[in-house]
């Protein structure tokens, strides 16, 4: 934990330092995006060189590995290659993605019910009618299609073009889906430029653990959401138990998912995620743990978020800026005002004085 925090801090420190990516020198913004994946590599090497000095100071070497590469792109090229190889298997209900198919039993009701809580009542057969949803990392469209059937207009995006092709093909036969579901092969950053404040909900299900840059990702989610919009995340916690279950059991022993699907270092704890979300302008509404039973292939809710968890956050509506110093003549004593944290004593009749710090 300490290493992680220090690592991230170190990252930010170094980012502000005089590092210049050799690839980016002298190139315009157009080709900058093309070069970002290589800048990841160079940045990482720079970081390793600098941080290796810390080894002598007794800092654990895993520090480097804990750090996600800070770059302008959230994509990790290795992850992209991994999913390209699996593209044709999305819709095999007993195949590699079987666990994701059965995860719909939890995540579709979770999304549907939380959206119904936030938005007004819709006709019961199309509970999500009128809502625009963005499914980031939609893969073959496993989560996109059920939400489209529930009446929402869903845009599914995925950086792997093969996935988008498979998803489009699968949805092409169903006239209901044709009206509600659309796919695009792009990344969230590319979309964020065009579609500001466009969506009622953004879904990032089983995506965060495959990303290179979480900060940018969350920031882009914030951009594309309408104020008061919902962000739904399902991902894996980074605990010893999750290492045992998600890597050892799921990948090596039981082969529930293909080997190499997950990288434990990329898992994120709910606390870190909450902190990140709240610093990016979200307010976490609900957090629930999920449990996968390999014997029957079914998911269920549980209290503990030790392995898998689902999270619902709302984008804060922008509040009108308030001046910190607003002494009101009745009841407020601003005499304690100082240069530091502003303090004023609110004195109300018959009650004790409360000290309020802004």
């Amino acid at each position, binding site marked *: 934990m300490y290493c992680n925090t220090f690592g991230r801090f170190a990252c930010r420190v170094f980012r502000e330092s005089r590092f210049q990516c050799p690839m980016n020198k002298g190139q315009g913004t157009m080709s900058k995006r093309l070069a970002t994946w290589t800048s990841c590599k160079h940045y990482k090497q720079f970081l390793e060189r600098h941080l290796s000095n810390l080894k002598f100071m007794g800092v654990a070497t895993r520090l480097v590995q804990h750090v996600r590469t800070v770059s302008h792109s959230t994509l990790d090229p290795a992850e992209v290659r991994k999913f390209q190889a699996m593209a*044709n298997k999305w*819709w*095999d*209900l*007993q*195949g*590699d*993605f*079987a*666990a994701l198919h*059965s995860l*719909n*039993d939890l995540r*579709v*009701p979770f999304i*549907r019910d939380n959206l119904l809580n936030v938005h007004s009542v819709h*006709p*019961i*057969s*199309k*509970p999500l009618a009128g809502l625009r949803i963005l499914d980031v990392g939609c893969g073959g469209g496993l989560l996109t*299609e*059920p*939400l*489209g*059937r*529930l009446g929402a207009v869903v845009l599914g995006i995925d950086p792997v073009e093969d996935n988008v092709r*498979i998803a489009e*093909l*699968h949805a*092409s*036969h*169903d*006239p209901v*889906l*044709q009206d509600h579901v659309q796919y695009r092969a792009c990344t969230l950053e590319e979309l964020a430029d065009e579609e500001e404040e466009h969506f009622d909900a953004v879904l990032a299900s089983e995506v965060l653990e495959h990303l290179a840059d979480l900060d940018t990702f969350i920031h882009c989610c914030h951009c594309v959401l309408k104020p008061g919009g919902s962000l739904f995340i399902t991902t894996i916690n980074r605990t010893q138990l999750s290492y045992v279950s998600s890597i050892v059991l799921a990948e090596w022993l039981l*082969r*529930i*998912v*293909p080997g190499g699907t997950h990288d434990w270092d990329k898992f994120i704890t709910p606390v870190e995620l909450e902190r990140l979300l709240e610093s990016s302008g979200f307010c976490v509404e609900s957090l629930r743990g999920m449990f996968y039973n*390999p*014997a*029957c*292939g079914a998911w269920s809710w549980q209290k503990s978020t030790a392995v898998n968890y689902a999270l619902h956050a709302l984008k804060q509506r922008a509040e009108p800026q308030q001046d910190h110093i607003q002494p009101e003549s009745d009841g407020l004593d601003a005499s304690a005002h100082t240069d530091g944290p502003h303090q004023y004593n609110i004195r109300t009749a018959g009650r004790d004085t409360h000290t309020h710090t802004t």
Partner: protein
Amino acid sequence: SQKLSGVTLSNLFVTRGFVSSENAEESGKADSDVYDIIISGGGMVGTAMACSVGFDPNLQGSKILLLEAGSKKEMDKAPDVYSTRVSSISPGSATLLSLGAWDHIVNLRCKPYQKMQVWDACSDALITFDKENLQDEMAYVVENDVIVAALTKQLHALSDQVEVQYRTKVVKYTWPRPYHAVTSIPWVKVTLADGRTLKTKLLIGADGSNSMVRREAGIPTVKWNYDQSAVVAVLHLSEPTENNVAWQRFLPTGPIAMLPLSDRESSLVWSTSHQHAEELLQMDEESFVDAINSAFWSNENQSELVEAAGSLFRAALSFLMPDGTSTRQLPPSVAGVGPKSRVMFPLGMGHASEYIRHRVALIGDAAHRVHPLAGQGANLGFGDVSCLARVLSQAAFNGKDLGEMQHLLEYETERQRHNLPMMAATDLMKRLYSTNAAPMVLLRTLGIQATNALPPLKEQIIAYASK
């Protein structure tokens, strides 16, 4: 072993392919003619299914179609003459039909009964079932035509939800290809006699015991013929009675049952050998009536040994449980038979080993066929309807593709768990009562007397049959 990666234990058993499926030439553009549900077969169970899904709030906006080979059955008021084929509708089925159709049935014609007496011809053993104090109805006797007409009327009220095509015969079904043939149409194709082709996301087979859906899907069926045919007729009673009791007597040749239709009329269901059934049909009315009365009343089949053992056991039971014995009542005597109302049909047992496939579900007689001695055939079908409707409703609320195996498996598991014990018990009863051999007679005599003496056991039996 690479193939097994990602396959859970439960999924190992769920690899049901189709016997044959054709590669569709068309691909690409979505066809606006894709139905969400097509129900093949517009009998009691098929029409009830159409009503249930039509009424369901989660399935509003779905395209539903009912295909029926016969013509539309409408009935504004009950005809003067009772029709021959009737069913005993349990309270559970009545609840299902209470989505509007039950009111139509009550307005047309139905007869509740409060008590049932079942007794043996080879001994004095008998068992009576009744709801406490004869207050509640045990079940209702309704003509099949009335049920279909009431459901049809209800369906008419749902005409913007459910489309019905009468006099439409299906000639071929084409099954969907598995997932990896991504370019082919993933729906079930239904080819009609007039050449049209329809596509659907879920095909529900409600086309009776000779189901074409089941046959074409290649679903293995466990079935055998009983060497029995059932003779059904409408009987006129000698004198009007309260007629709220259902009677069934097990003769060596098979059970004979009389179900009340009104104060003066009852329905006969006599299961007997093929030869005897033909004889009964050929007889003139008077001989037929005599045969029925003597079947219910005569005691010629009883052996002394069994009689002695039976009365001894009964004495012991009446000592232990004073309320546990019932006096035998005699059914009302029959005076005449309704004109041209004698019909016979062969009996058999059938059970589809799978009720579902990808995008296919079987309900009613297409999935299971029982002996009428327990009066459960229609009720099992209605139970299938209510379970499948519930499962589909929940699936639609979760945004699922209606033809997906996962929730269809839920339906199959639940219904097989209910239907199989019932069918096994019915078959067992039929075999147990098909013999004259003294040991079996003794066994069933004592068994029936013991069951009669145990109200909790009887209540369990009634509860199970009433679902």
